[in-house]
């Protein structure tokens, strides 16, 4: 299965022991986030709500392509970027 590099937004790094980039496997957003959650329990729920919708302060990109639903494919070799609204000033 394709392994992807995943870049973690700063507010989510408490789940990855501070790591800014990790690896996860999967061919679409759903599979990748499920694998990510197995490795870093709880991280998926910060991004995806109970109706499997991407939360409104989160954006997911495969390289520069926005993923709008969990069924969107993540091409082999693409980097998954987890973007989270920041509020500090």
């Amino acid at each position, binding site marked *: 299965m394709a392994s992807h590099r995943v*870049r973690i*937004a*700063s*507010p989510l*790094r*408490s789940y990855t022991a501070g790591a*800014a*980039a990790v690896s996860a496997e999967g061919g679409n957003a759903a599979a990748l986030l499920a694998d990510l959650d197995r490795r870093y329990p*709880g*991280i998926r*729920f*910060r991004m995806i*709500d*109970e109706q499997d919708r991407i*939360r*409104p*302060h989160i*954006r997911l*990109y495969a390289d*520069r392509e*926005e993923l709008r639903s969990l069924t969107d494919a993540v091409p082999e070799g693409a980097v998954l*970027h987890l*973007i989270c*609204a*920041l*509020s*500090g*000033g």
Partner: protein
Amino acid sequence: MALGPEAVARYSRHLLLAEVGAAGQERLAASRVLVIGVGGLGSPAALYLAAAGVGTLGLVDDDRVELSNLQRQILFETADVGTAKPLAAKRRLDALNPGIEVVAHAVELCAANAESLVAAYDVVLDGSDRVGTRYLVNDACVRTGRPLVSASIHRFEGQAITVLPGRGPCYRCLFPAVPVDGGESCAEAGVLGVLPGVLGAIQATEALKLLLGVGEALVGRLLTYDALALEFHAFPVERRPECAICGERPTITALRDEPRSCEAGEGVSSLQPAELARRIASAAPPRIIDVREPHEFSAGHLAGAHSVPLAALERGLAALDAGEALVFVCRSGLRSARAAAEARRRGHAVVANLEGGLLAWRATVDPTLIVSG
């Protein structure tokens, strides 16, 4: 308005640039920029805009300078501690460039004043530290058609986007709603002092480009900066036809104040530490919900408190009896206020927030409590 000899000398490096020149410098002198939030982002942005000769700089902030600001808010010096930020900033900027006008708006931006403030300027920079203010500024700019350069920071990471109303996505297109926890402020999460320097300078750059009409504005792109990896990325962002403020059928028809994180939401009572102590000792103590991260909870917490980190809030609330009295706590009372408001929205009847959080508890009830962070 021709440039005088002093201005020719002061702006000589601008005058050498064909993209600025005398005409561009005169345009900057006739321009008005509003900086909302005179903090980590607003400091470098205002310094560069003043130095660049932007004719009128408005500064909006209702805070006073604190010692903990000086690690990154480079407008201020130690002697400014205790002074209203816009007033201290005005002194510094007047000294830097006496040829411009600096207007200090020492007020809190709110629904009642946002549109009139924004409408009086050509470009708006948002460097506020409250997520609710970000939406208010965005909405005011969309409604008045003012260009907005928005930036935000967290620990070692920053973001920026420029909004040209009607010509690209707005901040609500980017992130349609406030996160349940309101996001962490610099006071809660910490921030590398130099980080806002990078993002604030980018905001000033965007403002100057917009005023001069040069280059490609950061419209329809979200710029992210990771200081630890030293990586910049730009992600495409599209307008959302369903956007509540700039979409085809806007549902926001008047500005509204988002509930401030530090205020109790509707139906949420605000408890002082002494009152919470009294209730804990009563015959019917409330259930205490600590919404901090697990590592903060394990460092020290109130006796009998239940750990429900914000990430697990929905599940945690679903497991509780809707009639049970709940008191939400966190480090400073910000995150717990959001959680308490969410509990009310989900039907919990008796909900309170510990005002000032565990820091206030430690200060007034139990100095031995270890409060992480």
